[in-house]
């Protein structure tokens, strides 16, 4: 019996070990086993047009595929201080006018990753910057792969410093203003926000996006989100333009595709 048990254990171990290898050769996703394609400098290749493809931005305290978006704490709720929770409820009531996205303002971090607009990750070998280019109001977010955080600035997207940990792009983001929200439900933060993001390719067409969010002015403890980003694979798919405020300007402005007819012959 002991021998049989040992053999079955050994078989099980072999199977466990062999699964990632076979899935790798077939290019099928299998959790952490997936090894991303590499750029010329040997770093994982995150290039592509990505989008969350799920209703995450409506409420970060909701679910994707039946799982809480907030994976820590276990109840899936943001661990607000009492006064900050009251502010969240007030924001929710006023969200039609006060949501920064309804004012065409910058979504900030982490929100840029899961608003319902595609973004292209632009990564080239041996360059000091990885650029995120979103369709939402031609947003450019630079991930600096060198240097230290800037002091004394309050930025809509914070100051992003990236590094590689194996398969994962880790981005440390600080120096925020307090003007962005986490979602359309009024979840918010202060200028003490500090975010650590982790982008890991978990399959040929998926990135697992994780962010640990701390803010001692607003939260009793940090919380962590995890959600899938999907690769756009449609032929010739490209980032277009959502020029939010151009669309909202008044009738005196000729935002369109023709010259003003009263000036034309």
């Amino acid at each position, binding site marked *: 019996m002991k021998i049989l048990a040992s053999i079955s254990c050994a078989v099980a171990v072999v199977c466990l070990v062999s699964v990632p290898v076979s899935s790798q050769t077939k290019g099928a996703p299998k959790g952490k086993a997936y090894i991303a394609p590499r750029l010329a400098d040997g770093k994982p290749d995150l290039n592509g047009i990505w989008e969350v493809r799920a209703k995450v931005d409506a409420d970060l305290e909701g679910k994707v595929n039946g799982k809480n978006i907030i994976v820590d704490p276990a109840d899936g709720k943001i661990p607000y201080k009492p006064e900050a929770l009251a502010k969240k409820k007030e924001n929710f009531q006023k969200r039609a006018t006060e949501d920064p996205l309804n004012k065409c303002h910058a979504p900030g971090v982490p929100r840029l990753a899961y608003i319902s607009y595609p973004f292209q990750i*632009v990564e080239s070998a041996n360059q000091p910057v990885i*650029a995120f*280019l979103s369709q939402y109001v*031609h947003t*450019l977010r630079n991930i600096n792969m060198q240097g230290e955080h800037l*002091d*004394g600035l309050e930025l809509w997207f914070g100051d992003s410093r990236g590094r590689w940990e194996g398969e994962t792009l880790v981005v440390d983001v600080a120096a925020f203003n307090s003007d962005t929200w986490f979602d359309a439900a009024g979840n918010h933060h202060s200028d003490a926000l500090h975010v650590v993001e982790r982008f890991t390719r978990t399959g040929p067409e998926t990135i697992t996006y994780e962010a640990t969010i701390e803010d001692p002015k607003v939260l009793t403890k940090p919380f962590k989100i995890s959600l899938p980003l999907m690769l756009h694979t449609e032929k010739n798919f490209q980032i277009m333009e959502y020029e939010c405020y151009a669309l909202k300007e008044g009738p005196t402005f000729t*935002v369109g595709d023709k*010259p003003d007819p009263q000036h034309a012959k």
Partner: protein
Amino acid sequence: MSKQLFVALSIASACLAQGPGRGPVNPLLNGNPYVSPQEVKGGPIVRLPDGKPDLQGAWLQRTVGNSMSMYSIEATPGHPKTSIPRTAGVIVDPADGVIPYQPWARQREIDLSENHMVEESDAHCFLGGVPHQMYTPFGMRILQPPGFVVMTWEFMHAYRIIPLDGRPHIHPSIKLFEGDSRGHWEGDTLVIDVTNQVARTWLDQSANIHSDAIHVVERITPVDSNNLTYEATIEDSKAYTKPWTIRFSYSRILDPKFEHLEFACIEGEVDVAKH
């Protein structure tokens, strides 16, 4: 008014660029975020593993003489009312340096500069379109991920994504502020075909205009590792009598610590809303 707004934006960004933590300010910027004043000769053209020129890094336009194409793309004696200074422009064809407008379009340019400077596209935080985007201030970064040339600017957090895979342009009914760019290499020259632009953008801050029929062919050629020549031929059968061509240079921003900062525009914009 729009000029004042823009100058305020420029000063704010220039101050940020010299803020704490930036390290040494790039000598090429030399206090002037619009144009790099001097050419720094480089070595041989750097190449990617596939043999194509490696244009990656940070660049700033180095226009000729007293010329700031941001202010006026064409030669002008200056315009006191709008505080546009005298400039030679960057037009090399036709030889007089002046845009070959159809009469209605010249009349509209005059009307806009005399009476409607509030419509200037920069003042509304709009993307510049092409070629205007190419001579906006604070530096341009080029990245060349596999299959693309990508350009990013601090100014208006603008970007251009230029596929090199030979795909067709998008449908002509779709109009974009930044247009639709398709690139290919002719020897060491990157050739970019740009269509699908809206008519709303200006070519500069002097109300030089185009219609939605604008078609631009750009040619970017490395001179050496530190310098690029930029040329663009602009045709527009609704606005001009014939195609015309601009040319200027870029110099590399040599400080390896140079970084783009954040350019929030609409987030703090109150000026235009008053009109």
